[in-house]
């Protein structure tokens, strides 16, 4: 699904990623842990193709294609989804309108038929229910006045609706109380499938109690310094990141 070789990337002229190697197969969930400033978010932005995140060396292959030759929206249509740490507010645009615009834009890009209002409504209600996203929320402007939990649930709803091949969850646990965390994690777990890969980026082990990864990587100063099973996360929780060259966790 995803192969990253010797990836170097710069932001504002400063090298943040200094040679990342990563292989993720369909059906796997990989956690990337690391201290602040280690390059976790940079990696997610590079995958999504954000402007200003410049790849200086190395290669990425996603489903056999080179994402570097694709625009942000093309990568999205090809199946890259980034769940934002801080989802953006879009005033005046209802969540429903936003979801429909996004889904139909992706379908159109893939040469599929766009969904009409009736079919879309049915689909979105079906996906919203398990995430406890109410009709009232769907009618409100996207993320405007949403609580922290509502924002993250709306992110997972988007993910569920768009059915991406690769989900990148950037610090999805930040700002969530334990109940909200459980709801979101259940939503994410429901999306685990043999066709889908996930990258869960997190600072703390807590989230990984609920979304149990197959592989855990430790990222420090732009490099993956250790890779192991889910028990590695527990180990980190005890020893902290100091052992991996980080100044402080």
């Amino acid at each position, binding site marked *: 699904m995803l192969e990253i070789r010797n990836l170097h990337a710069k932001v504002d002229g400063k090298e943040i990623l200094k040679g990342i190697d990563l292989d993720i197969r369909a059906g796997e969930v990989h956690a990337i842990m690391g201290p602040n400033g280690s390059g976790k978010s940079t990696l997610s932005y590079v995958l*999504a193709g*954000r*402007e200003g995140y410049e790849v200086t060396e190395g290669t990425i292959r996603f489903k056999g294609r080179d994402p570097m030759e694709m*625009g*942000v*929206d093309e990568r*999205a*249509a090809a199946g890259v*989804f*980034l769940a*934002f740490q801080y*989802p*953006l507010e*879009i*005033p*005046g*645009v209802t969540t429903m*309108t*936003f979801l429909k*615009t*996004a*889904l139909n*834009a*992706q379908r159109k*890009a893939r040469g599929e038929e766009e969904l009409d209002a009736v079919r879309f409504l049915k689909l979105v209600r079906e996906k919203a229910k398990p995430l406890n996203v109410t009709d009232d929320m769907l009618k409100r*402007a996207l993320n405007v006045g949403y609580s922290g939990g509502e924002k993250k649930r709306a992110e997972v709803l*988007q993910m569920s609706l*768009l059915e991406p091949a690769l989900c990148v969850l950037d610090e999805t646990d930040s700002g969530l109380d334990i109940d909200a965390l459980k709801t979101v994690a259940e939503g994410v777990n429901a999306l685990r499938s043999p066709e889908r890969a996930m990258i869960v980026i997190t600072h703390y082990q807590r989230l990984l109690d609920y979304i149990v990864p197959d592989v855990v990587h430790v990222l420090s100063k732009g490099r993956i310094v250790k890779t192991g099973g889910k028990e590695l996360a527990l180990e980190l929780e005890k020893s902290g990141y100091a052992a991996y060259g980080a100044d402080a966790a």
Partner: protein
Amino acid sequence: MAAVRETVETVGEVEKYKYGFFTDIESEKAPLGLTEDTVRFISAKKNEPDWLLEWRLAAFRRWLTMTEPTWAKVSYPPIDFQDAYYYAAPKQKVKLDSLDQVDPKLLETYEKLGIPLTEQKMLAGVAVDAVFDSVSVVTTFKEKLAEVGVIFCPMSEAVQKHPELVKKYLGSVVPTSDNFYATLNSAVFSEGSFVYIPEGVRCPMELSTYFRINEKQTGQFERTLIIAEKGSYVSYLEGCTAPQRDENQLHAAVVELVALDDAEIKYSTVQNWYPGDEEGKGGVYNFVTKRGDCRGANSKISWTQVETGSAITWKYPSCILRGDNSRGEFYSIAISNGRQQVDSGTKMIHLGRNTTSRIISKGISAGKSSNTYRGLVSVHRKAENVRNFTQCDSLLIGDKCSAHTVPYIETKNPSAILEHEATTSKISDDQLFYCMQRGIGEEEAVALIVNGFCRDVLQQLPMEFAVEAQKLVGISLEGSVG
């Protein structure tokens, strides 16, 4: 006023060239430039009664003494008013046989607007075949209006058929002396719409210039007059969303609305005149005076405008709230891109007691454009218990455009409650990235965000118009990012 008219008439009597010009009457175009003879020519062409000719001449003489307003935040080279034609018989559009002969760029725009094929043909001047009989549509529509006594016709026809109404109301809201461009319009206006809604009648359909334009091309100096008698209601839609490839540079229209007791007029505009090219060459100067008079008690006038075109827009649709308990509303979306300059807003003049007004203005600037909201809320001494709410929001796209808000508030009555809110925001890179990460293309993302920003105003438009307006918002901002 009477004394002025007398003087004007006396001057008219001694005018030596009064008849000298009429030999030329068969020509289709008035000679270049603007003189009294031009005014007489236009009036004669339209077979107007003497009072209207005198009315025009008075305006013309007044105009000679006036200077162009310079207070607006727009700049353009001086206009040579003598280097223009003020009357040309409606050009017979070349009838094309099929859409293949139409400018492909025009078709591309129609396509994006989602205008049905038959309508595209009508707009582009292609002879419409039996699939959609435009004549029968227009006829059915006229019959339906006639049943309830609604008059809806070109201004020149109203002058002939309903002179008493025209004489009574023309210039009663925007006097001939009002401002430079309105005065010019009074002297040389050549077309426009006339609407009369009888007492107690609720106009059974949205009146749209679309139907009328098909009958006859409107001129560059339109004069529109809408009268809503006691207890009547009308919703009027102006403009079509297709680009008007008008070679004329100056567009100086006047619109007058009169609402009597308990009457309501809703006036919606979607303006998409040619904005000029990216360098700011060409384009329409849209210098328009629009004013509504809530003359009767409990009357209501509501302006809704979506302004996306024109090189320069200078336009302040206003309400005179004369009748007690009357209400004025102004909902505006003004979009500027490229090198467009917009100076637009409204005036709410509160004269009557318990009068209320609401102003919602959304300005969007992109490219190297300049977008100014200029508004006046004025409360007169005798106007008790006035309420006004004003909200002015500006949205910037890119870093080479500008937005300005210039609100004026004058109040001479301490019981007035006036509220003013203003915001300025920018489409952030974060928002764009977020939308695009969901698979939405850049231009569609901008259109989505801008439509969200304009939502309060778009909701005021009649349903069928709102959909087109939303698409137009997207089209007019193409190329504004990236």
